[in-house]
C-alpha cells in the first residue's frame, strides 16, 4: 500500500487537529511543522497522536520510532516505513 505524500499530510493534519493549541501554525501546517514548538501540542498528548495514527493506518509504532515522531516530517517517514512493512 502506498499513499501520496500530499494525502498523508492532509490525513495527519486531521489526526492532530483535536490536540493543537496554535491555530495559525495549524492552518499553515507543512512538512516542517513541529508538533510541540509550532502546534503547541501538550507533550503528554503526543502519545494520543501516536495512538490515533496507529488506529488510522493499522500499524504498530515501536518506542524508538515513537521518540522521533515530534514533527510532521519524521512522522511521515515512520508512517510510510510501517505501511510498507505491512
Amino acid at each position, binding site marked *: 500500500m502506498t499513499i501520496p505524500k500530499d494525502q498523508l499530510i492532509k490525513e495527519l493534519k486531521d489526526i492532530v487537529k483535536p490536540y493543537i493549541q496554535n491555530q495559525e501554525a495549524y492552518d499553515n501546517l507543512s512538512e516542517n511543522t513541529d508538533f510541540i514548538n509550532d502546534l503547541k501540542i*501538550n*507533550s*503528554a498528548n*503526543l*502519545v494520543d497522536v501516536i495512538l490515533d495514527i496507529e488506529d488510522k493506518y493499522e500499524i504498530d509504532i515501536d*518506542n524508538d520510532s*515513537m521518540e522521533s515522531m515530534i514533527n510532521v516530517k519524521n512522522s511521515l517517514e515512520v508512517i510510510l516505513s510501517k505501511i510498507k512493512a505491512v
Partner: protein
Amino acid sequence: MNKRVVITGLGVVASNGIGVEAFKKAIKQGRSGIKYFPYLKELGFSCCIGGIPEISEELKREYLSELQLRNFNSNSILYGCIAGMDAWHSAGLTIDEEVDYNTGTVFGTGTSSVDKFRESIIKIDDHKVKRLGSTAVAQTMVSGVSAYLGGLLGLGNQVTTNSSACTTGTEAIMMGYDRIVAGHADRMLVGSCSDDGAYLWGGFDAMRVLTYKHNDSPTIGSRPMSATASGFVPGGGAGALMLESLESALARDATIYGELLGGHINAGGQRNGGSMTIPNDHAVQQCIKKAIQNAGIKPTDIDTINGHLTATKNDHVEIRNWTEALDLSGDKFPPINTLKSMVGHCLSAAGAIESVACVLQLNEDFIFPNVNCEDISQEILALVHQDQIPRQLINRKINIIAKASFGFGDVNGCIIFKKYLS
C-alpha cells in the same frame, strides 16, 4: 506563639528496606531496590522494572490478623499499615482498648487497592457480585488506609486520607502539622502509601514517561539528574511520621527525631507553562519561597535539599527552580539528593518515604548518596557545582533540610525539617 511540632516516630516500607533500620542502612549504602518483573514483559509493558517491597506472609501477620487478611488483596493498605504501626511503636505509644481522642491521622494514597478493585470488577462482570464479600468496600474506598490504621491504633481525632498525586505524602505531613498548630490534635500520624504493579503502572507506561532502556539493567535504570536519564522507574511502598506538639512530646518524655518548622502547599493552576503533567515554574518557586518564609529561615540556612527529581529529562528544570527560588547557585547551592535513584518514583508514597529519609539524615547527621548520576547532565552542571550533587555518603552535621514534592495536576509541596536540640 504558634505551637512547635516535632517528629517522635518513623516507619517506612520501601523496595530497598522494610523498617527504619534496614532502610537507613540501604540509603547510606546507595542500594537499589529496583528489579526486573517478567510478568510486565509478558503483559507487553515497555518498562518492565520497578521497586516493589517484598513483604513475607510472616511479616504481614505481625501487623494484621488472620481475619483482616481474609480476602485481603491490597498492597497500598498493607504498606501503609506496616509503616504507620511502626511509627506508632517507635513513638513509644501502645495500643489500648481506649480511644485516643488526641491523636488522628492524615494518611494519603493515590489509589486504594488497585488489585482488589480489579478482582471485584472481574467478579461483577462474571455475574458474581455476592462473591465480593464484606471487605471489598473497606479496601477499595480511597480512605481505606486511614480507616484501617484508625481501627488498629484506636485513633479518635481526625482520621482521613488526602490525595494529590506525587505531592500526596508531603501534603499529608503539612496537613497534620496544620492541625496540631491549630490546636485540634496533640498527635497526628501522617504519611502516605502507594499501590504498585501492572494495574497502577500501566497508565504511566502508556504515557511513555517510564524508561524502557534498562530492562536488562534494573538497578541502574533510575537515573535522576543524569545526562542519560530516560524516564522514571515506578515504585511502591509507604512512609509514616508521628507528628506531635512539642509540649505533648516533652510531657511524656518521648524521643524526638527532629522538628517540622513549617512549609507550604500550592498549585500552579495549569497556567503559565504549567499543565496537567508539567509544573508552572513560577508556582514551584513561590512554593519553595513561602515554605522558607513560613519556617522562619533563610535560604543559606539550608544544609541539604531533598528534591523531587524523578529521572525524566526535565530534572534540570527543577534544579533551576531551586536555584532561582533560593537565589543560590554554583558552589553556594546546598547539596541536593533524591531517593528515587534507589527506589524509583513511589508516586503517592514518594513524599512520605523521602521525608522519612530526610528525618534520618537530620537525626544521624548524614547526606545519602545519589546513585546512577556519575554523568550529571550538562544543563544541571551549568546551574550548580558537581560537588553539590553528592555521589558518595557524606557524614556532616545537618541542621536544616528542605524537602519538596510536585505532582500531576500542577500541585506542589515544600516542607522544612530542623534538628531538635533540647
